[in-house]
């Protein structure tokens, strides 16, 4: 019965969860098996619990409740009236359902009322929820990063005060980073004193004044704010910024909400802080370098999963339509170009999923090692997580955009109309490669790590895992050599040149990584041999093209 459960019906995702993710490694680091508090007797039981939860409640409510409401949520959208954000009825029900299903504290530790699940489970849950309604992800999927930031860096009092209520879903979160003049360049926050934090010398309490813009769920209850706390003349740029927690209240005003292209079920607010009481999180002056970086990393993985869910929805809609729609006496899926488009959509949906979950696995291992205070592992996995997360976010969101584009094309004129869900998917997906860092920002991060060699061992490790299909592996090995050639070349180039060709060099890395990941998957599922064959077949000319762009870029400024 299609449409009954978005997890069990997603064969590829289920396969990754069942067969590919190394749960034992994650559970060994993140759980204390044998400890009285630990609800699992062994890693197998933990795995069964995680996957059982993805089936019910996650996959169940996504398919049966969120998906049927998505159209209404999109059409009505969030409204703004007299300082209040008004949610559409469907969204209110969605949030209630998430609370009822006790899913809002998915990664929050059990001692604070959460489920304490790994990031990988959370990533899968975000994908499944986003397949039903991408806009809902901004409540469900950002909660984790915000809670984890509080968990990692806030005082015990703050943790006690906020985490339990975030676990139940009573509190939702927002992160207030962007300002009218500080989007991608967050170090510019409050360069013009738009937002400032001041400490009251008598009470020791911080207060925040100023404006933040483009704040997803800014009407939420727990707002993490990046604000200038240090005198700009003494500590300029990012070094003068600190991180604060502000609770929703009279002093936090929603001035307006944005009228957006997509994700209408997610309110994007302009916030005005009017001497709002604030709690400092962590150390002064570390706001950008440490806490924002942490938060953004978590959020990027979540956005990648959001895009992945939209891509899956677009793929499913396209498959259904191409089967139903007949022209010239046969279903359009039988026409070569449509068939090719559908095959590509599937291959690249699975490609971005492979990289996304490989990344979330690394993020889990990093968090686990950090909590266990394993210094070397923490450093090694941390390096990988920092390099892979932006690349995975870039790839998932760009691929999802392409898939939604093709989905409309397959639907033809019908796809342009509001009658079919692909129109909404096409609008919703467009933000994913912009927010939490544009694709351009992501590949800039990626290229700097690649050139530094942070991912060399990782690639070698992926190659080692492949034991079968030698002729396909040889093709990927060739691409890996091209990557090394390009990286060696880039070592001698300046940052400007590296950033210019960043998408091309990063794309070579992605082809190599996904090629190996697919081959590893093919050893566990025969179907994946064909997927790998198709992907590797198509990547050869692409790798060569990207090699040439990388080695010989031409930047011109054209002024007729």
């Amino acid at each position, binding site marked *: 019965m299609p449409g009954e459960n978005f997890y069990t019906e997603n064969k590829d995702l289920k396969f990754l969860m069942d067969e590919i993710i190394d749960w034992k490694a994650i559970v060994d680091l993140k759980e204390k098996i044998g400890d009285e508090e630990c609800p699992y007797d062994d890693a197998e039981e933990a795995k069964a619990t995680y996957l059982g939860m993805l089936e019910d409640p996650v996959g169940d409510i996504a398919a049966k409740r969120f998906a049927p409401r998505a159209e209404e949520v999109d059409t009505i959208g969030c409204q703004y009236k007299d300082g209040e954000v008004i949610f559409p009825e469907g969204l209110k029900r969605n949030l209630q359902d998430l609370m009822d299903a006790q899913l809002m504290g998915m990664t929050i530790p059990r001692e604070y009322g959460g489920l304490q699940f790994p990031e990988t489970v959370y990533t899968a849950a975000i994908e499944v929820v986003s397949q039903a309604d991408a806009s809902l992800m901004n409540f469900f999927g950002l909660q984790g990063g915000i809670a984890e930031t509080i968990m990692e860096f806030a005082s015990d009092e703050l943790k006690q005060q906020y985490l339990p209520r975030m676990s139940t879903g009573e509190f939702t979160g927002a992160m207030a980073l962007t300002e009218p003049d500080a989007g991608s360049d967050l170090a510019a926050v409050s360069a013009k004193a738009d937002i400032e934090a001041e400490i009251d010398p008598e009470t020791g309490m911080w207060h925040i004044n100023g404006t933040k813009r483009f704040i997803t769920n800014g009407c939420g209850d727990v707002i993490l704010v990046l604000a200038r706390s240090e005198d700009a003349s003494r500590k300029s740029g990012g070094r003068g910024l600190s991180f604060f927690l502000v609770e929703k209240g009279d002093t936090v005003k929603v001035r307006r909400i944005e009228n957006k292209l997509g994700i209408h079920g997610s309110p994007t607010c302009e916030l005005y802080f009017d001497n709002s009481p604030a709690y400092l999180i962590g150390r002064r002056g570390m706001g950008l370098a440490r806490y924002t970086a942490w938060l953004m990393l978590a959020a990027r993985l979540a956005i990648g999963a959001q895009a992945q869910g939209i891509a899956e929805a677009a793929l499913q809609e396209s498959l*259904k339509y191409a*089967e*139903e729609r*007949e022209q010239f006496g046969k279903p359009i899926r039988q026409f070569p170009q449509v068939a090719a488009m559908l095959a590509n959509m599937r291959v690249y949906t699975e490609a971005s999923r492979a990289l996304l979950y490989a990344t979330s696995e690394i993020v889990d291992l990093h968090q686990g090692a950090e909590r266990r205070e394993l210094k070397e592992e923490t450093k090694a996995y941390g390096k990988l997580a920092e390099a892979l997360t932006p690349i995975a976010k870039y790839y998932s969101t760009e691929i999802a955009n392409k898939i939604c584009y093709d989905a409309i094309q397959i639907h033809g004129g019908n796809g342009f109309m509001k009658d079919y869900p692909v129109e909404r998917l096409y609008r919703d997906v467009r933000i994913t490669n912009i927010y939490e860092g544009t694709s351009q920002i992501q590949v800039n991060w990626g290229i700097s790590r690649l050139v530094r060699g942070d991912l060399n061992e990782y690639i070698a490790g992926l190659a080692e895992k492949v034991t079968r299909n030698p002729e396909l592996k040889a093709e990927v090995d060739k691409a890996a050599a091209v990557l090394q050639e390009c990286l060696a070349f880039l070592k001698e180039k300046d940052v400007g040149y590296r950033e210019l060709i960043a998408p091309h060099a990063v794309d070579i890395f992605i082809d190599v990584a996904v090629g190996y990941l697919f081959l590893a998957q093919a050893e566990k599922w025969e179907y994946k041999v064909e997927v790998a064959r198709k992907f590797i077949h198509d990547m050869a000319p692409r790798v060569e093209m990207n090699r040439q762009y990388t080695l010989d870029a031409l930047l011109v400024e054209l002024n007729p």
Partner: protein
Amino acid sequence: MSNILVYAEIEDGVVHDVSLQCLAKGREIADASSGKVDCLAVGSGIRAAAEGLGAFGAEAVFVAEDAKLEQYLTSPFKKVVSDFLKTNSYDLILFPATTVGDDLAPAVAEALGVACVLHCDGLAGDALTRLEFDRKVSTTYKAEGCTIASLKDGIAVAGAPDSSRSAQVSDVAVELDAASTKSKVLRRDVAKKTVNLKDAKIIVAGGAGVGTKENFSLIEELADALGAQIGATRAVVDAGWLPADHQIGQTGVTVRPAVYIACGISGAVQHRVGMLDSGKIIAINTDKNAPIFKIAHYKIEGDLKEVLPKLVKLIKA
């Protein structure tokens, strides 16, 4: 030898068609085994209808009449029927598989401590058969001793009344104690029967896919052009687009017209069971995967707002 009792469900002075089918089936078995078939009718103002059962083959008709039995309720009806059966012995007691029969049959079986099998599609000797697993399996049940069964619509053809036959009619004393009158019917929202779907040769039926009450005029126009009756799914009735007497399916009527035109009906099992045996099924639906297409003889994938006027035009041409 089989002695059979048929429970005659009477509503608004009319014996339920499935009760008549039970009677026909009972007659068939009794004739083959030189047994007898009697009827028991319970209610208020049912005498005239009950007396007519002789013409349908009942040998004796027992009438339990009481003003307190005007509306069906489990406990008082159970009391009356089981009291009767305590003093009158039968091998087989047949109920129509309606919301009354399926409620009363197991209740009576419990009161008497006898076997009960519901929703039978077939009855031969002491073997009761029932279609199961979405009609993929026919299961045969055997029961020990006196057996109560409910029979599904279609078990037999209710014969035409034979006025030369008549039954001996006797009254049954009704004794209702406090224990059997604890529940009450507070109110009933029941449609008066204005359509006769069971005898219709052609039915045009609408489902949720019709979209609005106004769009039902398209269905009416086609029905008019064909001289057909109008049917509906439960969703349509619950939405208030048509009264409940138009409902076909699980809690509606079961129909077997020569032609069944399903418009905007997805074909959920609850509806399918009520129309599956129609002669020719034409389905019009925008969703190619609608289950109705699996049982349709003619599949039209399209918008009924466009297809129905076309059909009307073609019929009138």
